[in-house]
């Protein structure tokens, strides 16, 4: 290998960015006994990804196979590492919302809410009840959309393409609602520090209620389609089992943990954003296999529908954003009449607001588990450090435990039901 002429080095050598030494000739843990047996002499290392249709993005999995059986998996991540956390340190607090939304790109409302809640805690800012309700409604709609997409792509990985069409069809209904209330299908930057960007438009509530009327039937259709499908049941039941204790040790949260029977849901355990005023159940599974994960997601969608309905019924009157002019932009019509409003608007847009020094960690329940946001403020208008504890990043560690000693096909089912979002993992 010469440094002078890069073309003299084979292409494969040049592009290699991850060493494979640990996978090389060392025996993989737990397989030593088998190695002595004559029938199991050879372990085969197979690289899946980063470009592979079944890895939900650009996840790379170094699998060690023994015939058809997976003996070890090494997830290699970082292929969409975007440096968002570094970029956020260069942005004013209100501009950061745009960045954090792009981390976990199926749960954008959750990212924005986690971030805004941590900034609000640093500012000691009260969020008006109407804004809290609007946040809850949007987050739960987002949860439905996210679970639908997880289900659609998961079913696609298992070879059921109808679910992709149906899932996308109903996800588009949710995205239409987002578009109407906040202007864009994805990454709408609707959640603001101190509340939400705008009140819901007239007629939105009616459209949401139409959606709420349609959706239960649609969920029944999915259950008819998948839950009575022999192939679907065979591939999910009893595969990818992880025990509750192991899941807790690995920090797994969200539907994956609830599938093992642990009813840990931050919406219930540590309510935030007035979740304590809503009536809903936390679905749990029994065995912690892939089928339980699927069922938990299905039931969570039904619960989310209930929450959205209660949110619409009990939507309080009042402001949709805090009246603190130091944090929230003044309403548009005041700019023409009030000098102070104009000054506040100018200061906010050019300089942003300053946050007193301090650090905080706020966690909320995203569709994939505990989404935590750590913000360090140094008194300036830009955060000194922002870190997201992304649930996919932590949950991915449980993949080797789930898929070890199972067939490759079951391992694909595990990835599908794990529902990792690579944008969230790599940030």
């Amino acid at each position: 290998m010469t440094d002078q002429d890069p073309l003299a080095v084979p292409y494969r050598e040049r592009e290699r960015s991850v060493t494979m030494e640990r996978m090389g000739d060392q025996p993989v843990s737990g397989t030593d006994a088998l190695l002595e047996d004559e029938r199991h002499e050879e372990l085969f290392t197979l690289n899946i990804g980063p470009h592979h249709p079944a890895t939900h993005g650009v996840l790379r999995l170094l699998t060690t196979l023994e015939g058809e059986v997976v003996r070890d998996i090494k997830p290699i991540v970082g292929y969409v590492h975007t440096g968002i956390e570094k970029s956020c340190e260069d942005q004013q607090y209100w501009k950061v919302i745009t960045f954090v939304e792009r981390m976990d790109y199926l749960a954008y409302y959750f990212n924005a809410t986690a971030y805004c809640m941590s900034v609000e805690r640093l500012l000691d800012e009260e969020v008006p009840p109407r804004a809290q309700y609007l946040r809850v409604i949007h987050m739960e709609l987002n949860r439905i959309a996210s679970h639908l997409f997880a289900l659609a792509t998961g079913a696609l990985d298992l070879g059921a393409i109808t679910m992709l069409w149906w899932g996308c069809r109903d996800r588009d209904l949710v995205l239409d609602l987002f578009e109407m209330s906040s202007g864009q299908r994805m990454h709408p930057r609707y959640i603001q520090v101190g509340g939400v960007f705008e009140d819901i438009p007239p007629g939105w509530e009616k459209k949401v209620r139409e959606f709420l009327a349609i959706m239960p039937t649609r969920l029944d259709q999915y259950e008819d389609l998948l839950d009575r499908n022999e192939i679907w049941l065979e591939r999910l039941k009893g595969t990818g089992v992880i025990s509750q204790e192991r899941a807790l040790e690995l920090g797994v949260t969200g539907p994956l943990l609830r599938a093992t029977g642990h009813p840990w849901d931050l919406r219930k355990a540590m309510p935030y954003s007035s979740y304590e005023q809503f009536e809903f159940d936390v679905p749990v599974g029994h065995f912690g296999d892939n089928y339980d994960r699927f069922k938990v997601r299905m039931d969570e969608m039904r619960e989310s529908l209930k929450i959205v309905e209660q949110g619409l019924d009990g939507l309080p009157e009042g402001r949709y954003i805090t009246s603190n002019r130091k944090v929230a932009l003044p309403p548009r019509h005041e700019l023409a009449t009030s000098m102070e409003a104009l000054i506040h608007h100018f200061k906010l847009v050019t300089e942003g607001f300053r946050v007193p020094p301090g650090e905080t960690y706020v966690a909320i329940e995203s569709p994939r588990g505990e989404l935590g946001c750590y913000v360090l403020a140094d008194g300036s208008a830009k955060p000194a450090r922002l870190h997201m504890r992304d649930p996919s990043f932590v949950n991915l560690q449980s993949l080797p435990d789930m898929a070890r000693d199972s067939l490759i096909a079951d391992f694909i089912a595990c990835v599908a039901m794990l529902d990792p979002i690579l944008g969230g993992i790599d940030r």
Partner: protein
Amino acid sequence: MPDATGLELIAQRIRSSLGDEAVTGTSYSRGQATLDVAPAAVYDVLAYLSKGDEEPWRRLMSLHGVDYLPAEPRFGVHYQLLSMERCDRLNVRTRIGGDEPHLPTVIDLFPTVDYQEREVYDMFGVVFDGHPDMRRILLPEDYTGYPQRRDFPMGGEPVLFTFNENQYPRWYD
């Protein structure tokens, strides 16, 4: 969250079982309890909190690295502990200085920190001694530098407009 008194009680219990220098301070602000721990005692304190304490904190939910650049010691590592029984959180913070900071790993207490310690190493260069696989996780293996440090340049390209195109002559070189 444990309130300010509860936090002091926790600190007292740690001091009485691990020695006075283990806990360097406590702070309670905005409903969040933070326990400052000497870097040498991190492992012992976390082991005590997770198993030995009368009110144990069994789960570690998150691990953050921080760079408090103008301040000394420069780096901080936060351990967000959670008690699912009491629905309570506790933040354990340690500060380390130097250009190549070292900390003991806590992977045998909390297996969940596997990726997160690697991420902190990747972004800040904090080496966790004893971690079985201390490699970069998000950036390419051959990357030099630790991008989340405050003195690491942001990178990227300047956006050229007509008003500033003279400021960046031949920026692409």
